[in-house]
């Protein structure tokens, strides 16, 4: 029996993605200290919250995969970080003062908060133990409404983010700048799809695909700090 088989897959992949997101947050913060650009600060905060979300969902499982109460509790904390990160991500967009988002940020914020509070309320009031599947994959097993609220929020917000940065990529100048916007846009799509799969799936294969997409998006985000305009 090798060591890898002892480590459950969901917490392992979540933890890996979380560490990568932490690195992205740190790199973004270093960039913020140099530039004092508000949008970069919020981007750093977004990735920090994504890191915390991942750690909340992975550390209990890594400590003891059989302690389902602890894992379920971690999931509730993780959901809180998820909605907090969505609100911060929205601040990245509003800091860039771009049309629709700036004008309707109040409405979008209200929707995110409303959906987040509802999902959390449902998770707490109707607490259910998660289910551990094949290869140590975890199905979160929350109330269906909360499950779909979180999954669809992740997907729609991811696509919304992707569209925003795809549009931004059209107006920035220089190859490196356009490439960075493309990376952020791809991040949105990948994280959105990953969120939908991870939160709603009851199938080990789909769950693993979702986790892998999350790790991939985190790695891709690190590339943001590699390219510099010459």
């Amino acid at each position: 029996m090798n060591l890898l088989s002892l480590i459950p897959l969901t917490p392992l992949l979540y933890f890996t993605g979380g560490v990568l997101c932490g690195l992205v947050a740190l790199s973004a913060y270093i960039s913020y200290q140099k530039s004092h650009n508000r949008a970069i600060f919020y981007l750093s905060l977004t990735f920090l919250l994504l890191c915390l979300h991942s750690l909340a969902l992975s550390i209990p499982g890594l400590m003891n995969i059989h302690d389902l109460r602890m894992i379920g509790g971690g999931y509730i904390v993780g959901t809180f970080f998820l909605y907090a990160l969505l609100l911060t991500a929205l601040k990245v967009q509003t800091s860039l003062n771009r049309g629709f988002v700036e004008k309707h940020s109040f409405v979008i914020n209200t929707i995110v908060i409303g959906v987040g509070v509802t999902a959390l309320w449902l998770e707490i009031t109707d607490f259910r133990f998660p289910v551990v599947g094949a290869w140590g994959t975890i199905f979160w097993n929350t109330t269906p409404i909360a499950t779909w609220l979180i999954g669809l929020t992740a997907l729609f917000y991811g696509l919304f983010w992707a569209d925003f940065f795809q549009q931004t990529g059209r107006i920035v100048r220089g190859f490196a700048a356009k490439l960075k916007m493309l990376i952020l846009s791809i991040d949105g799509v990948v994280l959105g799809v990953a969120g939908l799969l991870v939160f709603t799936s009851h199938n080990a294969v789909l769950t693993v695909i979702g986790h892998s997409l999350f790790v991939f998006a985190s790695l891709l985000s690190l590339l943001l700090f590699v390219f510099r305009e010459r």
Partner: protein
Amino acid sequence: MPYEVVSLFAIAVLNALFSYFLLEGEKNKTNILFSLVTLSVALWSVNLALFIASSDLARGLFYANNYYLAAAAIPLLFFYFSLFFPPETTKRWKWKHTLYLLPFLLLILATLANRNIILAEISLDGRHKAVVLNQGFYLVYALYFLFFVTLSYYQLGKSYLESKNILEKIQLRFIVWGTLISYLLGMTFNLFLPFLGNYRQIWLGPVFTLIMVFSIGYAVFRHHLFNVKVITAEVLTFSIWFFILIRTLISDTLQDQIVNGVLLLATTISGIFLVRSVIKEVETREKIERLAEDLSKANARLKVLDQQKSEFVSIASHQLRGPLTAIKGYASMVVEGSFGPVDVKAKEAVRRIFESSLHLAKVVEDFLNVTKIEQGGMKFEFTKVDLKKLAVDTVAELKPNIERAGVAIAIGDNGEKEYYVLADFEKLRQVIANLIDNSVKYAPKGDVKIFIDKQKESGKITLSITDNGMGIPKELENRLFEKFSRGEGVSKINTGGSGLGLYLAKEVIEAHQGKIWAHSAGEGKGSTFFVELNEYEQVKEAEQADRFAKAL
């Protein structure tokens, strides 16, 4: 043929080619002197080869005397070379320099007077020759040799220390080391060993001049020594000749010798043609390069003149502005009756003075603006400007002119609430006023339509001014925005134009990252002028996004 003889012939040819090659550059004292040095080496080698090859002892003695005299010429010529290197020095030939020739002339005379003055006796020792030296005179000969060699390196060392030119120092290093090694080895085998009784290795001396040839050759290639224009085709051709010559000399059979000889002849003839054509091509290229350089200098001079012209126009315009303001002011006051009642005819005359001074002031302003643009002195203050409001206000401002011309003007838009652009308000107003004014002038009693269109997708706002006036001829459409470009017949309608208005408009709009262009269906079919600017929000968003992306 013995290998020593072949080697010596090869060395002779190589040195002779090198001598010719050095004269290809500038024919100054240093080049000629060094060329003579290598030519002496060639003569030394040939005579040494003939000495070794000859079986007739009398002839052998003749060749031996020749090669000793040729060898004696080497340090003397090298010393003269050291006196005049580097060529840029102002050293001139002086009478005292002639004195150095004296020992050499005495040596020639002594050899002519007594054929056995160096070699006392020659006899055949198998394949080689046994030589008995005249020790006393040989010592004098050796001292002569050492004297000039020492003096040469003293001169070269002095030049090296005095030189402040890095390239010269590098060249001197190559000359000193290349020749010194050749000298030391050559003197060992040709001067000292024979003195000690070993005459067998005498053929090796010239072989060591290869070190000098390669060292100097490298400095010629890499460090522009002797300013020789090295043409690869030339070097290649010489190398082929040299190679075939060696093959001919070492051929064992007569058949091989004939084949190689014919080959040598053929390559010599074709090589000469090749080298000539390449030299011609190189000369043509150099001529073109010189012409391009002259052209670039002329261009730079023209730029300076253009700058001076702009400065002159600027100063002249500034000088004109002051008196014009006084003329305008007083004319206006006279017309308004500030100085009491004026006769109707006189009032009309003063009114014309006032209008002409207004026009002149505009022309002066145009000249000043052009000068500012060309000198890069035009300053822009970008703010949020409502393009529609600006167009409406400008039309209101030009109302007296429009009414006088009997033109019907209409303003429309594509129904958006705002038409904000990022612009320098005053300069954009001048551009729009100029365009409307032009349309009014060129479409008397006609219609002028102003339309503002916002394209949300691209974030652009376009202002178009359409008239049904005289139109634009096709040939003028492309150069309409150039300085002083006016169509035929324009001057009859617009007598007062400076020909700079559209040029200025283009420069101003381009400074806004915008575009300006005109379209006309042809003469008499009216025209439309378009001004496209970036939407304010779009520009601000792009700036912010750029900062974000670059800082990330």
